[in-house]
């Protein structure tokens, strides 16, 4: 019974933890502009993150090593450092976007300007990281994030013509106002949002935090293989609500509040309450994950002691670096830069940086020195290599497409 509960908890947190500000914004924008025409990109990203999260979890459980330690060992100091700089800065951008997301969610709930919420949100993130146990913070935000299921409920209440939805998803065609370049730009953005590298840093470091052994592997596989696809469905529901409700009205999502409109129309006040809790939990949870990831990447590269399982005094550099990252996030947001824009940028740059994370994982997962008999099976390797090709293609296309389309405008 305890096992079943553990499994259910793991799956539920994986669903709730899947969606972050990047998924929320990108799916909302895409739904309101392209309808269901880009659903394939989210689905592709979900398959990719399942494959690589699972791989990095297995590496962490077998070798006891988290992703960035291995990146350094495999790529050496020079290439490793380049990788660290890129990954760390992009993660910092994502962290900034998540703090902004928490602040925007609080603004929706309170009508107090988000700029006032930014320091509060960052302080709350820090307090939780400083004091709350890893499993608790993961489970609570994950479970509360499940409130976002209200998007799926709203989609059903809005009652789209499902035949038309499938037709749009299977054979996408562009509306008069959209160009093929913007279509592909958002395809890459959705893919990047689903496969954001911090998810892998966090996942593999979390496996070390929770001291996974081989025995825990089957459970983690279930969490990933069931939880992430369901989380992906949640993403699709967000896009779907925007497609059914906002697209016919000609509203293009450019703020978090527009994302809530379809839910309010379909489900009234109660649904809005759920959405607000869900938005807060999803962005707050992702804020914790990205803050921790910034500490994880630095500490693992430089060989510092790290982890929530140690008291802060036993991981001083780890904790100080996270404080600095949160302060940087506050400072950036306080310039008045639009958090939604930061989010869109972070998603595209994440897409550009994907191979930096995923290539070394694939290499190490095949190294018998680390993995012994648990190296990748042939099937996983074939899938991994196919995905590596897709990931590299997305990464090469990301920045040029951003420039050509003027960031999707």
């Amino acid at each position: 019974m305890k096992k079943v509960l553990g499994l259910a908890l793991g799956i539920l947190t994986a669903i709730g933890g899947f969606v972050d500000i990047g998924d929320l914004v990108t799916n909302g924008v895409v739904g309101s502009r392209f309808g269901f025409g880009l659903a394939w990109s989210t689905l592709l990203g979900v398959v990719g993150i399942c494959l690589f999260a699972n791989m990095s979890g297995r590496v962490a459980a077998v070798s006891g090593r988290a992703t960035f330690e291995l990146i350094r060992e495999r790529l050496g100091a020079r290439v490793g450092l380049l990788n660290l700089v890129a990954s760390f800065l992009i993660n910092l951008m994502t962290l900034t976007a998540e703090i902004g997301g928490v602040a925007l969610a609080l603004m929706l709930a309170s009508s107090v300007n988000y700029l006032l919420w930014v320091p509060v949100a960052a302080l709350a993130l820090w307090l939780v990281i400083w004091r709350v146990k890893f499993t608790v913070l993961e489970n609570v935000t994950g479970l509360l994030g499940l409130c976002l299921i209200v998007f799926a409920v709203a989609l059903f209440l809005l009652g789209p013509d499902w035949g038309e939805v499938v037709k749009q998803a299977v054979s996408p065609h562009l509306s008069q106002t959209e160009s093929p370049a913007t279509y592909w730009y958002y395809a890459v953005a959705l893919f990047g949002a689903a496969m954001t590298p911090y998810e892998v840093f966090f996942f593999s470091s979390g496996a070390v935090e929770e001291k996974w052994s081989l025995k825990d592997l089957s459970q983690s596989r279930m969490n990933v293989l069931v939880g992430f696809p369901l989380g992906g469905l949640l993403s699709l529901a967000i896009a779907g609500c925007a497609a059914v409700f906002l697209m016919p009205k000609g509203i293009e999502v450019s703020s978090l509040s527009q994302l809530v409109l379809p839910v309010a129309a379909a489900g009234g006040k109660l649904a809005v309450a759920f959405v607000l809790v869900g938005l807060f939990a999803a962005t707050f949870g992702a804020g914790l994950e990205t803050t921790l990831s910034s500490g994880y990447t630095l500490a693992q590269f430089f060989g510092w002691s790290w982890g929530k399982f140690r008291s802060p005094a036993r991981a001083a550099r780890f904790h100080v670096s996270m404080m600095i990252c949160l302060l940087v996030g506050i400072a950036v947001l306080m310039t008045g830069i639009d958090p939604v824009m930061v989010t869109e940028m972070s998603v595209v740059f994440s897409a550009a940086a994907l191979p930096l994370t995923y290539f070394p994982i694939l290499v190490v997962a095949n190294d018998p020195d680390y993995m012994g008999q648990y190296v990748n099976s042939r099937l996983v390797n074939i899938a991994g290599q196919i995905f590596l090709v897709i990931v590299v293609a997305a990464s090469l296309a990301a920045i040029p497409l951003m420039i050509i389309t003027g960031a999707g405008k």
Partner: protein
Amino acid sequence: MSARNESSIHEHRPLIFDATLTLLDRQVLDRNDEPVCTVDDLELSGDLHDGVEFPVGGPRPRITAILAGPVLVTRVFGGRPPRHLWERIDWGDVERVGVMVKLRLAAEALNVGWTESWLRERIITRIPGGRHESE
């Protein structure tokens, strides 16, 4: 755990490994398995400059210390940090070389971890809850 190439370095038979491949950039753990640093560079006996070959037939170079900290910068960008900035761990303090490098000493006994202890004393332990495990 793969223990295939875990080996004690103080066994009698000589241990042959490629130092660039299996030693550089590895995680260093102290006696209590706490992470200390990474192997940023190695100090060899017979202090040779970059680009100078070891003399054929001369005494073989030995690893005398693990270097960490500032040498990482110079390893990436070239040059050498001045000797007084070296953060060394004496090779004699190394217990085992495997996927990670294990030391015989506790981290506190090494000067390599000075930034860690400095930040701990100046910042972390001055914030309430800094010494406590999470709850």
